[in-house]
């Protein structure tokens, strides 16, 4: 009972998400929501390394593209069975992420951001220029949809929606377990002060590397899902602008919060997609919005709500303390 109560927001989200296809016949809405779920997974990756561990990675569109192109090339050109290719795509991204992280994480703060920005650009340039492999500007066409698992096939929009939702739920649960555990606290300690983290015996390099590798895995997973959902890949998914889009989702939702990626990505993807004219000029609003948020609400929508709730709870507790002379010690969270 208490587990349900503690996770009631997540469960309400899940319930709404499960029922959503029942209320609409509009395939386009379903398409957009599925797309936003895919991006959410990638943004969770960015959140883990940027929000929790404090290292702003600007290469994540690149990792997303590595996952997407790996799946695309393995299925289209190499005829590898779909789910095997899917696992391989995630694995390839993770391995690239490991080696990039090994070097990139030796740099700090600004250097790390610039370094990863350049890594992202290199990935873009390689995809763009190496057209014998990737199709270059023409892109990669005809990525197959996921193959059936047993009796379930993934031809319809609904089935794709539920498949992506299933992955999102897994990622969410994983992030919840991770960030609320001692391991997540370790990442936050590094974000807060790498110096202090080292003096309390944390191998910061190793912890940052693990966090980075998980974050690239999530980007690759999202990329692989994207490839077989959209079924066409162009080099622009790896461009810096895609990373900046992801960053916008994260900042609006709330960097360093569990629900931030979910809220931010869903809001912005659905808003921009439903207002077509926004597509091209979205940054006219989102650019200043980013600036406004980091100055006034650096923890975004979710962070803002959390602050407000924490303040209210604190006031309530003060009041309780005043009314009852014997204050009970509260343990656990």
């Amino acid at each position, binding site marked *: 009972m208490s587990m349900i109560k503690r996770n009631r927001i997540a469960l309400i989200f899940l319930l709404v998400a499960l029922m959503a296809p029942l209320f609409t016949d509009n395939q386009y809405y379903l398409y957009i929501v599925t797309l936003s779920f895919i991006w959410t997974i990638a943004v969770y990756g960015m959140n883990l390394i940027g929000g929790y561990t404090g290292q702003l990675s600007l290469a994540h569109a690149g990792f997303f593209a590595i996952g997407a192109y790996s799946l695309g090339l393995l299925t289209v050109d190499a005829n590898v069975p779909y789910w095997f290719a899917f696992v391989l795509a995630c694995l390839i991204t993770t391995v690239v992420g490991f080696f990039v992280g090994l070097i990139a994480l030796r740099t700090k703060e600004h250097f790390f951001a610039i370094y990863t920005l350049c890594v992202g650009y290199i990935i873009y340039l390689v995809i763009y220029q190496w057209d014998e492999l990737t199709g270059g500007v023409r892109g990669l066409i005809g990525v197959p949809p996921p193959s059936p698992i047993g009796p379930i096939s993934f031809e319809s929009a609904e089935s794709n929606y539920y498949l992506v939702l299933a992955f999102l739920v897994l990622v969410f649960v*994983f992030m919840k*377990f*991770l960030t609320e*555990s*001692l*391991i*997540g*606290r*370790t990442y*936050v*300690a590094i974000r*807060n*002060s790498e*110096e*202090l983290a*080292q*003096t*309390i*015996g*944390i*191998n*910061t390099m190793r912890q940052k590397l*693990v966090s980075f590798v*998980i974050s690239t895995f999530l980007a690759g997973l999202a990329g692989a899902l994207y490839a077989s959902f959209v079924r066409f890949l162009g080099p622009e998914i790896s461009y810096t602008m895609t990373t900046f889009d992801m960053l916008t989702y994260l900042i609006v939702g709330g960097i360093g919060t569990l629900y931030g990626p979910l809220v931010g990505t869903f809001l912005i993807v659905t808003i921009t997609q439903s207002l077509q004219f926004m597509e091209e000029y979205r940054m006219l609003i989102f650019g200043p919005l980013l600036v406004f948020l980091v100055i006034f609400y650096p923890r975004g929508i979710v962070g803002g709500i959390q602050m407000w709730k924490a303040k209210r709870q604190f006031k309530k507790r003060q009041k309780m303390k005043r009314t009852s002379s014997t204050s009970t010690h*509260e*343990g656990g969270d």
Partner: protein
Amino acid sequence: MLIETTGLTKAFGGLTAVDDVDVGIEEGKITAIIGPNGAGKSTLFNVISGFHSSTNGKITFNGEDITKKKAFNIAKLGIARTFQTTNLFEQATVMDNVVIGHRLRTKSGVFDALLQTPRLKREERACREKAEEVLTFVGLQKESDRLVSDISQEAKKRAAFAVALATDPKIVFLDEPAAGVNPEETGGLVALMRKMVNNGLTVCLIEHKMQMIMELADHIVVLNQGKKIAEGTPEEIQNNDTVIQAYLGGGEEAADAH
């Protein structure tokens, strides 16, 4: 000697911040390192705690050579430290800041979180119990649920002590523990350092407040321009001509010293 440095030298480019320093820190005692600004005190701390690699010389801990060890490994051996700026996370509660101090004694990794293993649960409980224990020890049990940004400077200092103590150290290095704290509160921190020593810990501190040092320290080491110019009991240091010279030479520093 619990910690001993021999010929320890640290140079940054052309500047020798710590120059051929031999220091011994005796177990169960309070050792103070004093000296004018720029004498190399903080650098000495940074080198011993593995933050900077030494240019030359040797550091031993319980006879074991730790010169080349990294900061996190040194912490695992039982050497803890605090910073002048407490480096705490202001937006989190005192408890949340302290709980992570015991992380180095745990083994759980990402897969433990993914599978919610019993080991993770056990270790999280251990960290929390440790945090409660050290918060009680430093006298912050009542403040444990407050945000660090809401507590006083003196309480922040105590919280920083608590983080260090949560690592289960044998020795604690305190970098200006009483800086920015008013005289009455300084007394409380002095009492806390005594309590630490009475509980079997060894304390080594950098401090500018001379009066406090003279009544607290068992042993004083004086640095000037990277070199050790004297060491001894508080009485010996107070009557040492070289030390008086160094402090008078420092001008304004001498005025601060009283």
